[in-house]
């Protein structure tokens, strides 16, 4: 098995350092928000995780498309990595959204279109994993996975729009439900710095984890191949 590439080792360390800086910034550098207090700090992670979750699914759909074009199974492995990371970060997005909502609006859930769309996206990709689980043939599994990843990804923005339309006749009873909108809070310049830095760090973290996960996938694949050889 080839050793970990130097670049990846460096990336691991850089990611760790950046992440620690980001945590420090969020807790100590960012100002205390007047209305919401300490809990508002969740926001920096919440949005960043949401963005990265979306990125994971976008890459999964793209890699799936490339697989369908080329038939090279390595793209399927990459697509799966994208889905897994997307699921994890989306989950963080949803849970952090819930944690934020509770003290502010006294509710565990706001029917905010973005939050609901994130949940639907999560369910789509959970279904993706279940689909893969039910297929033995690796080529069929890759093909079906790719098709579903693309279909799922296309349906998400349409879901978002349909929820927005739906909401105009079903306004949320408690609170605005739109954490970033006017009436939520306005970001001071310092907050903006922390916000964008946080986005940046999460993106770096995403690619670091993605690279590691893809490497893992390649190892798994090699092991399967060796197993086949031994059994023949």
């Amino acid at each position: 098995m080839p050793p970990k590439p130097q670049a990846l080792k460096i990336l691991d360390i850089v990611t760790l350092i950046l992440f620690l800086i980001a945590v420090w910034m969020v807790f100590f550098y960012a100002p205390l928000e007047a209305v919401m207090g300490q809990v508002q700090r969740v926001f920096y992670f919440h949005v960043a995780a949401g963005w990265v979750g979306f990125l994971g699914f976008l890459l999964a759909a793209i890699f799936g498309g490339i697989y369908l074009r080329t038939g090279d199974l390595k793209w399927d492995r990459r697509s799966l990595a994208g889905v897994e990371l997307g699921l994890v970060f989306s989950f963080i997005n949803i849970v952090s959204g819930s944690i934020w909502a509770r003290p502010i609006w006294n509710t565990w859930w706001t029917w905010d279109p973005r939050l609901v769309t994130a949940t639907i996206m999560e369910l789509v990709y959970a279904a993706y994993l279940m689909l893969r689980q039910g297929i033995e043939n690796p080529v069929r599994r890759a093909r079906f996975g790719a098709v579903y990843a693309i279909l799922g990804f296309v349906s998400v923005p349409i879901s978002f729009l349909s929820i927005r339309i739906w909401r105009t006749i079903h306004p949320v009873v408690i609170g605005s439900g739109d954490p970033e909108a006017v009436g939520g809070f306005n970001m001071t310049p310092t907050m903006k710095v922390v916000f964008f830095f946080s986005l940046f760090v999460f993106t770096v973290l995403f690619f670091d984890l993605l690279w590691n996960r893809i490497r893992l996938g390649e190892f798994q694949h090699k092991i399967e191949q060796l197993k086949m050889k031994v059994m023949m």
Partner: protein
Amino acid sequence: MISVRKLIKRFGPKTVLRGLNFEVARGEFVGLLGPNGAGKTTFLRVLSSLSSPTLGEVRISGFQLPGQAAAVRRRLGVVLHQPLLYGDLTAEENLRFYGRMYGVADLEARISAVLELVGLSKRRRDLVRTFSRGMQQRLSIGRAVIHQPDVLLFDEPYTGLDQDAAAMLDDVLRQIAAQGHTIVMTSHDLARIADLASRFDVISRGVIAASAPREAVESRGLLAFYREAIRNGK
């Protein structure tokens, strides 16, 4: 009629067909033998266009798979393990459906002719659900020939048939063979195929291990020929 060169078929990491070569001239009746797992069914599925080759060349009636699949399919009749028939439709409705799918001209006349060939004229208005396995198999052959294909592929057609049904199937196959169709049939039942085929090929471990015309095999007996091919193939 059929020309296969260096056919490789992989399913992910597993290679089932390893550079298989296979030539069949018009009118030949090839009995394809081989142990389980040798690749018989996979090979037949590639020939039938249901499975596409990973590498290599497959030509039927001059047309190439997978590129010219539609042209190949028009000239191909396939009988598999499963009858490919709709239980809730009658025999003639099934034939009518497939006739339409293949764009058969003069369909009603053909349906009658085909039912006559496979000995099911009296049951034409009965639901296929009520047919025995032997009858379904015969109707399945009818389905396979309704569009006058050049080449016929059979995958273990005798499986699950009793003596009477098998004898009827023999009759139908003999008639079809007599008309000059090119036929490839896989079979486990050496006794039956020994009488029908004009040539015997043995698949072992993803390639053709041996091929011999009927005359060459007759003296030794088919079983001996088969065993030797498997031994040599290892």
